[in-house]
């Protein structure tokens, strides 16, 4: 299993290893750092001056009232904002393991191969079966063998806690699953390209409470191996799954800023900023 896994990694990432530090300490896992990030939609600024360190192999939650720039921010972490509508501009730096993903020589496509994303609404490919959905990323960037495909399908569905539910309908259409299953299928699909970091933008907001609980459990499992950033409007969810929580807020000028970031327990129990205190107490938003 380990052998095949690394073979797949070699296929998915033909480029040389980037994190090689000659005499430095071993990476504890993949980490990210955001330095003075600002984002504009055309002339209108949406996010200003965010500084943040994303801990390796941990879940970082981003909370805040709607419209405060959470989605805008998280889409900048893997350059997804570049494919969306609305011309926008980004200043500042976003580092993955110390390397700026906005450096001029960087290919945004490769960035997204290292930093995956799961969206608000489950979006399996309707033209593909369950199994094909899982390996879609692999197949579209490389030529995996049949055994690599089978291995990846089982491993990733298993990691996404979906294998037992779908192992008998791997060739059914991805769209035939329930909403919660579709979302876990999308997580499996994201895991199949072996990302370093997984970004999730309100992954449960279209799901019922039981499906939500399953995804939360899954996130708790996944953060043993992956670095996770999750946007959520649900403060209980942040408390259940996240090690660190960042609170975003848009002031009168409708520009979102990072108000406070702390270990989750501390942020909710002893917020340093009074706006955080008001928000977590449910006094607005």
């Amino acid at each position, binding site marked *: 299993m380990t052998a095949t896994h690394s073979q797949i990694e070699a296929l998915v990432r033909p480029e040389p290893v980037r994190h090689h530090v000659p005499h430095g300490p071993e990476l504890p896992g993949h980490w990210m750092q955001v330095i003075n990030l600002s984002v504009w939609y055309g002339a209108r600024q949406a996010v200003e001056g965010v500084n943040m360190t994303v801990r390796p192999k941990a879940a970082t939650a981003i909370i805040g009232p709607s419209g405060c720039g959470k989605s805008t921010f998280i889409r900048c972490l893997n350059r*997804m904002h570049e494919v969306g509508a609305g011309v926008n501009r980004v200043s500042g730096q976003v580092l993955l393991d110390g390397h700026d993903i906005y450096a001029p020589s960087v290919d945004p496509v*490769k960035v997204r191969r290292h930093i995956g994303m799961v969206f608000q609404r489950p*979006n399996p*490919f309707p*033209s593909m079966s369950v199994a094909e959905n899982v390996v*879609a*990323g692999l197949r*579209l960037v490389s030529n995996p063998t049949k055994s690599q495909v089978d291995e990846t399908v089982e491993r990733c569905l298993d990691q996404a806690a979906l294998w037992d539910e779908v192992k008998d309908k791997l060739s059914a259409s991805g769209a035939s699953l329930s909403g919660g299953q579709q979302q876990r299928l999308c997580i499996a699909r*994201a895991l199949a*390209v072996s990302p370093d970091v997984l970004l999730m933008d309100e992954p449960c907001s279209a799901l019922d409470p039981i499906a939500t609980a399953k995804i939360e459990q899954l996130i708790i499992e996944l953060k043993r191996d992956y670095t996770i950033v999750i946007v959520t409007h649900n403060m209980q969810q942040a408390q259940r799954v996240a090690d660190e929580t960042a609170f975003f807020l848009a002031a009168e000028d409708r520009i979102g800023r990072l108000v406070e970031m702390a270990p989750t327990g501390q942020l909710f129990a002893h917020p340093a900023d009074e706006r955080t205190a008001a928000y977590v107490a449910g006094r607005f938003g």
Partner: protein
Amino acid sequence: MTGAVIASPYPVAPGLPFTDDSRYRRRRARSQAMAGLIAFAAFLGVSILWIILGYVTVKGAPALNLAFFTERPLPYGEVGGGIAPAITGSLMLLVVAAVLGVPIGIGAAIFLVEYGKGSIIEGVRFASDLVAGLPSIVVGVFVWAALVRNVIGNFSGLAGAVALAIIMVPIIIRTVEAVLNLVPHTLREAGLALGVPKWRVILGVVLPTARAGIVTGVVLSVARAGGETAPLLLTTLGNQFFNWDLGKPTGAIPIQLYNYAVAPYPDWHEKAWGAALVLILVVGVLSILTRVATRGSVR
């Protein structure tokens, strides 16, 4: 409790607020009259189709026999013969036209939806609409002047296929563009978020999702091109004999239909009706086939 009448604890309001009045009755009558007129218009529209179908079937069915499909037309005035060279010719012309036109049409539609920006989109769309609006005889004249006179030097199947491709391309662009726009943006995002290059997402995700609509658009354009006569008269000319050489004049069903129709012989007139029936049947079968083949995906 069933059937028991429960006395209401509340008093009944005086008068019934829902009773209709004369104004309401007038409105309702007018509305019903309008609905009747609209239904009649719909009926007229559909009955024209059925009248044409019925008339062509009655006139053309007697012509359909084995010889009609397997034999070539006989010399002027002789009774018998068929439209076989026209069938094979139409087939060849349409295949070649599709080979030329489908990649251009689908490519242009992909460009418009996935890559085009602002004024370029408008330009391409305007040009495509202009070509779609050209009388087909003009396409024929153009291909005649450009290819038949200057490049190829004689009437040929290739020139006919080019003319048909020009007629097909705008139809393909329009339908494929519409169906690509129906593919949710979230699917493209999902693909890109996996670290897949954009062109690969288009080929691997967007086109398969839109498959049914694309097939429908292509078939629609083939059906339309298959019935064109004017551009073929000026490009392939027609041929009473079997021909598989793209460099030579080639028969086609609409040309044969015309030739049979303008001759002064009742037997040939019947064959013209038969050819018309064959054209209608081919179009019908094509659209039924696509409906079956593309069931259950974005159309």
